[in-house]
C-alpha cells in the first residue's frame, strides 16, 4: 500500500513538469513578450523603446530557453523559462502588474476563500447525500419521481441566476443580510451566510441526482439481496450496507476537490465582493495580468494533483480491497 502511494506521488512529478511546460508554451510561445507589451501598452502608439522598457521591468527581456550571452550556469538560468516557469516549483511566483508580490497576496487571500469554500463544501455534501439517500429510499414512488424532476430543473438553472436571484430576494427584498462585502474576524458570518447558502442550493440538483444513481446502482447488487434475506430492516440495509459501498464512487468525485477549495470560487467571490483568491483571479483576468494567471494555473494543478493523491489515500481507508493489497 505504501509503495502504491509512493508511486502515485512519483507520478505527480512528470505531470507537474508537463503542466509547467504547457503553461510556459501558452504564455510565452503563442505570443512573444513583444506582442504582450504591445497589447498592454496599447497597439497604436508604441515605440520600440517603450516595449524594451516594459520587458525589462518585468524580466521578459531574456531569451526563452538558452541565454548564449551569459556565462556558465547562467546560460540556462538567465532565461524566461527558468525565471518565470521553473521557479514556480519553489513557490516563487514573482510580482503582479501592480508590483505586489503574488505569494504574499495569495497567503492573505486564502483565509476568506476558505471561509466560504469549506462550509459550502461540508454543508453541500451533507445536504446532497441526505437528499439522495431519501430519494433512493423512496425509490419508484411519487416522492422519488418529483424529487428527480426538481433536481433536473435545478441543474438546468445557471449558477449566475442562483446568485443574482438570491442576492435580490434575501438581501434586497427581505433585507436579511448585507448584499456583499467582507470583514475579518467573527463578524464575517453575516457576510458568509448568503454565499454559503447559495453555494449549497446551487449544487443540489446535479449532485443529489448523481448520488441517487450511485445508491440505486448499489442497491441492485447481490449483496443487498443477501442482507435483506437475513431479515435486516430497510434502513439498516441502506446505512450499513449500501451507504458504505456507495461511498467509494462518491469519494472519487468529492475528495479530489478538497485541496482546490483553497482557490475559492470565481463567481461567488466576485459577486459578493469577498477578497479571496477567486476574486483575485477574476481581477487578474480582467486586467490581463499574465503573471497572476500563470501562477494560479500552476497552483491549481498542484492542488488538483494533491487531490488525486488524497483520493487514493481515502480509498485505502474505505475499501479493504485496496488496503490489504
Amino acid at each position, binding site marked *: 500500500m505504501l509503495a502504491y502511494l509512493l508511486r502515485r506521488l512519483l507520478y505527480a512529478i512528470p505531470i507537474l513538469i508537463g503542466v509547467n511546460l504547457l503553461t510556459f508554451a501558452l504564455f510565452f510561445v503563442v505570443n512573444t513578450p513583444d506582442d504582450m507589451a504591445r497589447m498592454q501598452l496599447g497597439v497604436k502608439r508604441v515605440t520600440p523603446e517603450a516595449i524594451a522598457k516594459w520587458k525589462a521591468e518585468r524580466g521578459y527581456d531574456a531569451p526563452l530557453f538558452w541565454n548564449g550571452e551569459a556565462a556558465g550556469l547562467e546560460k540556462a538560468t538567465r532565461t524566461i523559462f527558468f525565471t518565470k516557469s521553473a521557479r514556480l516549483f519553489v513557490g516563487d511566483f514573482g510580482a503582479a502588474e501592480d508590483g505586489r508580490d503574488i505569494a504574499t497576496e495569495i497567503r492573505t487571500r486564502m483565509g476568506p476563500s476558505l471561509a466560504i469554500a469549506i462550509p459550502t463544501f461540508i454543508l453541500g455534501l451533507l445536504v446532497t447525500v441526505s437528499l439522495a439517500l431519501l430519494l433512493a429510499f423512496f425509490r419508484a414512488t411519487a416522492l422519488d419521481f418529483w424529487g428527480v424532476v426538481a433536481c433536473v430543473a435545478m441543474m438546468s438553472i445557471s449558477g449566475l441566476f442562483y446568485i443574482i436571484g438570491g442576492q435580490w430576494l434575501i438581501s434586497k427584498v427581505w433585507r436579511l443580510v448585507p448584499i456583499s462585502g467582507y470583514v475579518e474576524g467573527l463578524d464575517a458570518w453575516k457576510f458568509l451566510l448568503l454565499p454559503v447558502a447559495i453555494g449549497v442550493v446551487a449544487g443540489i440538483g446535479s449532485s443529489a441526482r448523481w448520488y441517487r444513481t450511485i445508491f440505486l446502482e448499489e442497491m441492485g447488487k447481490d449483496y443487498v439481496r443477501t442482507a435483506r434475506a437475513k*431479515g435486516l430492516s430497510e434502513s439498516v440495509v441502506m446505512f450499513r450496507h449500501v451507504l*458504505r459501498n456507495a461511498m467509494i464512487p462518491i469519494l472519487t468525485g468529492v475528495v479530489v476537490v478538497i485541496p482546490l477549495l483553497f482557490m475559492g470560487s470565481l463567481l461567488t467571490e466576485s459577486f459578493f465582493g469577498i477578497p479571496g483568491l477567486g476574486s483575485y483571479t477574476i481581477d487578474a483576468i480582467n486586467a490581463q495580468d499574465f503573471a497572476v494567471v500563470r501562477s494560479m494555473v500552476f497552483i491549481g494543478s498542484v492542488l488538483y494533483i494533491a487531490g488525486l493523491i488524497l483520493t487514493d489515500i481515502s480509498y485505502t481507508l474505505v475499501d479493504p480491497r485496496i488496503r*490489504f493489497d
Partner: protein
Amino acid sequence: MSDLLSVRNLKAGFLAGGRVLTAVDGVSFAVAPGETFALLGESGCGKSATALALLRLLPNAGRIQGGEVWLEGEEILALPEAAMRDRRGSAAAMIFQEPATSLNPVLTIGRQIGESLERHRGMKGEAARREALALLTAVGIADPERRLEEYPFQLSGGMKQRAMIAIALAGEPRLLIADEPTTALDVTIQAQILDLLARLQAERAMGMLLITHDLGVVARSAHRVGVMYAGEIVETAPRQEFFTSPRHPYTQKLFAALPDLGQRGAQLATIPGQVPGLAAMPAGCRFAPRCPVAMDRCRLESPGWTELEAGHQVRCHWVAQQLPGGEQRLPDLPAAPPTAAAAADAARENLLAVGELKVHFPIRKGLFKRTVGHVKAVDGVSLELQRGRTLALVGESGCGKTTAGKAVLRLLPASGSVRLDGRELLALPERELKPLRRRMQMVFQDPFASLNPRLTVGEIIEEGMTALRVAASRDERRAALAALLESVGLPAEALGRYPHEFSGGQRQRIAIARALAVQPELLVCDEPTSALDVSVQAQILNLLRRLQEELGLAYLFITHNFAVVEYLAHDVAVMYLGRIVEQGPVQQVLAAPCHPYTRALLSAVPEPRLAGQREMVRLPGETPSPARPPQGCHFHPRCAQASERCRQEYPAPSTQAGGVVVRCHLYPAD
C-alpha cells in the same frame, strides 16, 4: 399441517412495459422438515423467481400475483413487511448462486455473520463472536479465527460459499433455500459444498429447497424432485421414481439429451424449438409445441395433475391417456449408426503438435512495477492431435486450458513449439502466419460475447473470408455463405439479421459457421456448450460431431464437462495448474484413471443417475494460485497418497498400458 413449507398455486411475474409478465404460474409444492426438495429446470423456467418470491425478495419490478405460501403454519404472503423480516433468516434462510457478489465487499465475514446473530438471536459482543466462530468451524472453514476478521475478497470461491452458508445458518433456520449453490464452483468444490449441505441438513433437521439445473446435483442431493418448464411444475416425484421412470415427455427428453459414453457416436436426442418467451406463452400445455407426442388436446387445454404412484405426479395429457398400464416411454429415436470411421484408424499423421508450450504472465509489483514473478498459466504443455480426431483438454477453472488453446492460435504470446502440419508457428512473423490462420480457427465459450452486436450475421461470417481472401468474387462468397448456413442448420434469411435476434444455441451455430467459413482443418473449441442448457447443448454436440465426420475436422476441445468428453473426444488430456498430469485415449483414462487428481475429479462429477455413482474420492482444499505453485508435484498438498518425494521433485512422465501417459510418482518413470 406437517409440512414445513407449503406453496399453493403461487403466481409471480415481472413488470415490463406497463404490464406484468408472469414468470411463475401456479406453482404448488411442499417441503417437510429434514427433506430436500429439488426444483429442477433450464434457464428462464422461473425456478429462481419462485425461490425469491417465497421470501418476498423479488427485485423492484417483481410482483407476486397470487397464491399462498405457508411456512411453519403461517401464510407469509399475507404478513406485513415487518413481520416478514422476522421470518427471513430465521424461519427460512437463503443462499445464492454467486458467492463472489453475494457478500458485502467492505464488511468483514465476522460482521456479516454477526448481523444475523444479532437480528435473530439477540447475540452481541463476545457471545456473538464465539457463535460466529462455531458456525465457521461447522461449515468447514480452516483457521476460522483469522477468517472472522477477513474481507470476502481475501477468501477463495469455495470459502465464500461456505461463509454464505454460515451466514444463512446463523439465524438457525428451519428451511434453507439454496439457489444454484454450486453452479459457480468447480466440480471438486461443488462436491465439498453438496456434502456440507447434506451434513448440516441432517444435523439440524432442516428442510431444504434446492434450485438447480443439474440432474447430477439432483441425483446426489435431493429426496424429491419437481421439474419446472416455462413457469409451471410439470412433474414431481421421489428421487427413486424420478430417475428410474421419468414420465413427462420433457423430463424424458432431458435425460435423453445428456451426453455420455454409452451414446458415443450416436445422435443425441434434442428438443426442437426453444422455451417460449414470457410474453407469448402457448395456450394449453406449454410444452406442446416442442413435444413429440403432442395431441390436438394438448394445444387447447392445459393438463391437470395425474397421480401415478404415491408422490409421483405429472401434468400431461399423453401420460394420462396411456393409463393404466400403457407404454409411457417415448418412442426411441432412430439410432444413428455409430460411425466406425473415426475410431478405426489410430495411426494417422499429426495435424497439430504442441511441445513444451509455456505462457507466463509477468506479475509487476512495488514502486517501479518491476516484474517480481510470473503467473505460469501454461507451463510446459505438450499435445498431439491427428486429423479428424478430437482431443479434449480437461481441467478446473484457472488450470490454464483456455490460455493454452488461445496460445496455440497465437492469440497470446507464448514460448515453446506449436507445429501445424509440421510448420512451426510461434516463430513466424504475423505476415507469414496469416495464410496459416485459414487452417485453424476457434469457437468461443460465450455465444453472447463472441458475436459483434453491430454486424449482421452475413457480415460476421464473411469477415474471415475477406480478411484471409478465401472466396475471390462476391458471388462465390454469397454461395459459400448460403452453404455454410445450411450446414450449421440455420435458415438462409439469417444472413441479413443481427445476433440479438437469435437464441444462445443459434448464436453458437453462427459462431461455428464463422469459423468454418475459412475452411479450417483444426478447430479449437473453448467450452462451446458450457453456457447452454442441456437440450441446446445436445444440438451443438450433434452438429460438431456431424461436421467432423463430413469435413474431417480436428477438434482441440477445451472443457470441464466429463460427460461431453465421454461423448465426443478420442483422446483426453487432464490439466492441473498449467501442466498436463495425465493424457491418453478417452476410454482408458475415464475407465481407469491413473493420476490421483484425475480420479478425484472424475469421482466429484455428480452423475445424473442413481446407479453407477462412482466411489467418492474426497479432494480437500482448493487449487493454489498459478503464481505460486507448490514445490515438487503441484498436486501434492491435496493428494492423499503424497510422499516426501512428491514434495521435492516434479514427476517425470510414465507410460501405462493403452497409451496413457501420467505424471505421478506412484508410477515408475519411463
